[in-house]
């Protein structure tokens, strides 16, 4: 489709474009609910995501000057609904697209926006997130990684952990301290550190789902050029906090629709196996399946008001915490249900059923992280208590 025509599509016409383009262009083997599924290699993912961007399905709300499509959050939601309906692989550059990019848009210089943003959307630069540290998990203000002045630039020394995708990334969105540890939130600064800089060492960490996507990253007096500092100390972090509150509500907006795809896959897999098909006639299992279906609608019910509020220019406050918390716990409940059901398959299950068993084992294990990353369940509950209910702390 011509670029100009694409930018004119709205509403259902945009949805039709997204649906048709995805149906016609998803590479063979990419869909985890299909019998020919084969986990795609990194190069395939890069090519696929770059193609999605060219088709108008990524960078949707970013300005056209920086490679985006200049659309509203409504088109972003529509694209995510269509992406979610298909069992596509997760983005390998979600940190770039959903964290680094919006922060750069908020506080980056014009030169930084032109340099970093198109590279993210075109998948030339994958980003990782260097926030958490061994001694600073939920309590980020305790972080110890230091940034000290070195001429016009900086030198970074410290250690990051749980850095997803560090081994395949070109840049790290790094949070470091410019003053003493006692300053807590003061003096924190953001950097866009090239991952091939001298002094960086990445040690992959094996996860419970047997993947090595996150890592420890060691920084030993790593030089950072002045043009790779994002905002002044304090400014960068404060802006990042504002962006994070919105991002928590808008990132991976497809997840309710992907959740629905997973539920449909579970049911269709069960129908293909005599032992599992019998479960589908059992009231107890049916009640749990229906409860999952309602949970999915509740996730959608958390997402759509956020989009409407942002479009109307209203503050969304801590609503992102509501969506994240409900989704992560409901998804864990569903993953356990799927595991329990599929465990009762016939011993001579068909390849389609064993493929489903593999997919849902992975979903079950991966879901353990969903109530931990991006703010644990306990942190989300604290945010809801403090900022949504505004409960007094009281002495």
């Amino acid at each position: 489709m011509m670029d100009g025509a694409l930018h004119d599509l709205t509403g259902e016409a945009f949805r039709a474009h997204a649906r048709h383009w995805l149906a016609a262009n998803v590479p063979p083997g990419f869909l985890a609910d299909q019998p020919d599924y084969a986990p795609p290699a990194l190069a395939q993912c890069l090519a696929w995501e770059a193609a999605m961007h060219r088709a108008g399905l990524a960078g949707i709300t970013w300005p056209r000057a920086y490679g985006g499509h200049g659309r509203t959050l409504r088109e972003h939601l529509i694209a995510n609904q269509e992406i979610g309906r298909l069992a596509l692989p997760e983005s390998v550059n979600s940190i770039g697209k959903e964290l680094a990019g919006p922060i750069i848009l908020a506080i980056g210089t014009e030169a930084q926006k032109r340099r970093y943003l198109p590279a993210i959307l075109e998948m030339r630069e994958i980003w990782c997130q260097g926030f958490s540290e061994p001694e600073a998990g939920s309590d980020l203000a305790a972080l110890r990684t230091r940034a000290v002045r070195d001429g016009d630039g900086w030198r970074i020394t410290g250690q990051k952990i749980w850095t997803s995708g560090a081994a395949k990334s070109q840049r790290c969105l790094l949070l470091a301290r410019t003053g003493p540890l006692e300053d807590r939130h003061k003096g924190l600064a953001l950097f866009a550190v090239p991952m091939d800089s001298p002094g960086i060492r990445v040690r992959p960490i094996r996860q419970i789902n047997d993947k090595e996507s996150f890592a420890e990253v060691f920084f030993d007096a790593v030089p950072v050029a002045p043009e790779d500092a994002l905002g002044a100390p304090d400014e960068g972090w404060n802006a990042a906090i504002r962006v994070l509150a919105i991002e928590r509500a808008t990132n991976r907006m497809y997840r309710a629709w992907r959740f629905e795809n997973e539920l449909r896959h579970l049911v269709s897999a069960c129908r293909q196996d005599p032992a599992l098909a019998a479960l589908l006639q059992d009231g107890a299992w049916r009640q749990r399946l229906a409860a999952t279906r309602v949970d999915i609608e509740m996730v959608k019910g958390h997402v759509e008001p956020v989009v409407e509020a942002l479009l109307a220019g209203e503050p969304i406050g801590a609503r992102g915490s509501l969506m994240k918390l409900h989704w992560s716990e409901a998804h864990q409940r569903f993953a356990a249900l799927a595991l329990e059901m599929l465990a009762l398959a016939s011993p001579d299950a068909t390849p389609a059923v064993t493929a489903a068993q593999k997919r849902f084992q992975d979903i079950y294990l991966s879901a353990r992280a969903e109530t931990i990353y991006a703010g644990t369940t306990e942190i989300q509950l604290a945010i809801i208590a403090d900022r949504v209910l505004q409960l007094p702390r009281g002495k």
Partner: protein
Amino acid sequence: MDAIQGGLDPRDFAASAARAVAACEGLDEAACAARLAQDGLLGVAAPEVVGGLALELRFALPLLQAAGAGDLAFPLLETVLLARHLAAPAPEVAAALIAGEARGSIAWAGIARDDLTGVVGRAPMAQGADWILVRLADGAALLPATALAIADSVTLDETVPEQRVTLSGGAPCCQLDGAAWAALAEEALLLRAAVILGAAETALVMAVEHATNRRQFGKPLVANQAMRHLLARQKLALEGMRGCIARATSCEEEDAVLVRQAAFLAAATHGPLIAEAAIQAHGGMGFTWEVPVHRHLRRIRALEAQGEAARLREAVAAALIDAN
């Protein structure tokens, strides 16, 4: 769908609905009807020809939510639906309901025989009603209360008590066909969700107030993380319910029926838990008749039963399994 109809926003209704509900406090059923009719609220979703305001159903939601929040002692949900759905087949009944001159109820449980005999149940405030709609195998029939035997039944909700209705033949005032009954029943799901939302929200507000004001061990209860997390979880569920209802009024997706069912089921699943948690948060006070959280719990459980939540979950499961 346009958010505004004729310059009105459903949210504008919330404040006036809350005032009208508050004004009904302490009034008997007939006086409630007159008071609500005075503001035109009973005909909010009924056509103008019978004296209604001819607004879309979503305009009734803030009203029903206010009724739940204020524990209104009136079968408002049934009256609003009867006024809307009887406008064509029984315009004089609809007009009398809207004017507050007659009262109606709907027996939500059971199916009467086609010869209009049998027993149906869960008819809120049937004893004061002039007209009662009962379900048939394929549709529903509107019967004058004078032709029915109405008796107390086991009822959890004492503010809007349910009664049992025994039919003994006779001629109906009018009948709704299967499609008309299905439309009414589907709309009832959404209105029930709104009542539950209102009732659950009041219960949560009361719990927050109590936990904020009550001091133990030298500090407010709400200073304890266990209490903060308990209340935060209820808020999470409440906002999920609200979001589902909002989706059901704006959604034009292919699965609009499911979205309405989900709005009720989200409310029927989480509403009782919120009210139960509110009792827990009140400690021993919560177990007293005087603290009215139990009234909200009773109302919510009654609405869950009237909407036959477990049976509806089964229908949702059937649709899911058939489609995949």
